[in-house]
């Protein structure tokens, strides 16, 4: 498996689009999950996913194999998604869960209720929450990425948790 992945990466680094297609198939779910949770909009998440893979394609020759490919890919995905999130964010606090029907969660999602609740969070609280709780970033890094104060990141995270617990209790 690793050997196959290494081979695909090596081929894609030489400009082989078929090899890159295999990498795309392998990692599109991971990238799309990050983008969907940050953007909370299917169309934007699809655009962001494309942007991420374009960047991966462009930067692929710089990958030296010092870390796992998925580890190398992760910050590219998060930072690209955050860039698009920043461009597209609209101040909103959706309280109607039916508005989220179009995000297209798979039918076999193990906890669609929680997923939809995350997508309902206000933009900044959601971005902080996703990056901290799901993607493993620290508040200082998040503050830098989102161009906010570290204290704001912590406050938004706390706010997101309170909202989620309140919504999930109510349902």
């Amino acid at each position, binding site marked *: 498996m690793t050997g196959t992945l290494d081979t695909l990466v090596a081929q894609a*680094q*030489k*400009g*082989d*689009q*078929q090899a*890159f*297609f295999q990498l*795309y198939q392998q990692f*599109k*779910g*991971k990238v*799309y*999950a990050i983008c*969907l949770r940050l953007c909370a909009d*299917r169309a934007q*998440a*699809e655009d962001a*996913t*494309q942007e991420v*893979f*374009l960047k991966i*394609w*462009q*930067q*692929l*020759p*710089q990958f030296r194999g010092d870390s796992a490919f998925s580890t190398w890919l992760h910050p590219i995905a998060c930072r690209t998604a955050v860039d698009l999130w920043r461009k597209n964010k609209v101040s909103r606090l959706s309280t109607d869960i039916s508005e989220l029907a179009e995000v*297209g*969660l*798979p039918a076999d*999602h*193990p*906890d669609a209720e*929680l*997923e939809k609740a995350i997508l309902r969070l206000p933009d900044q609280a959601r971005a902080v929450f996703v990056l901290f*709780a*799901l993607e493993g970033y620290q508040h200082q890094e998040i503050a830098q990425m989102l161009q906010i104060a570290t204290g704001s990141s912590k406050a938004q995270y706390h706010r997101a*948790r309170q909202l*989620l*617990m309140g919504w*999930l*209790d109510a349902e």
Partner: protein
Amino acid sequence: MQNNKLDQRLAQLPEHIAPTAELWPALATRLASTAQQNPMAAVDRHEPATTSSGWWYGMAAALLLSVLGWWQLPAGQQQGANTPELAALPVAAAPMPAATSNNKAGRADVGRTEWQLISLFETDKARLLKQLTVVPAEYGDWQQQLAIWQQASRQIQQALSYQPDQPVLLRQLQRIQQQQLAYLQKLVQSDLS
């Protein structure tokens, strides 16, 4: 809800979510015109051969595209439609590269992006055609409409044989494929409703 209960549920969220739309065709088109950042990378690309034949095939495809909008309408909305039944369209898997190499330029294979576009399209098309059982009367000439799209696709593929991975032609091919898939989707939905 307790904090630890929320944490437990968060830990069970999937790391992967499959996108509902197939993003590769559009991405592949963009990749074709996007260079990798390392100039030393051994990029295996076809040299575009700018021949007058390629240009003419491209123009023919563009002209054919321009009439397709009319064909997208259900039969009842078209004026003067008089379309005989055609034989069932092939739903076989994507043609292998060698299958389209019989052109005057003696080209050995098709562009990679083009092949991927065709491969994904044929898979989606076959899937939709399988779902189709009864076509509503207003779409009675659906096979002819698909045949026209196929003809346009062939023209573009012919043009691509002279200019492999040419971004404009790839976009045209992709647009035609998307139109066909949207049309088939509409047929399937009409069939279900």
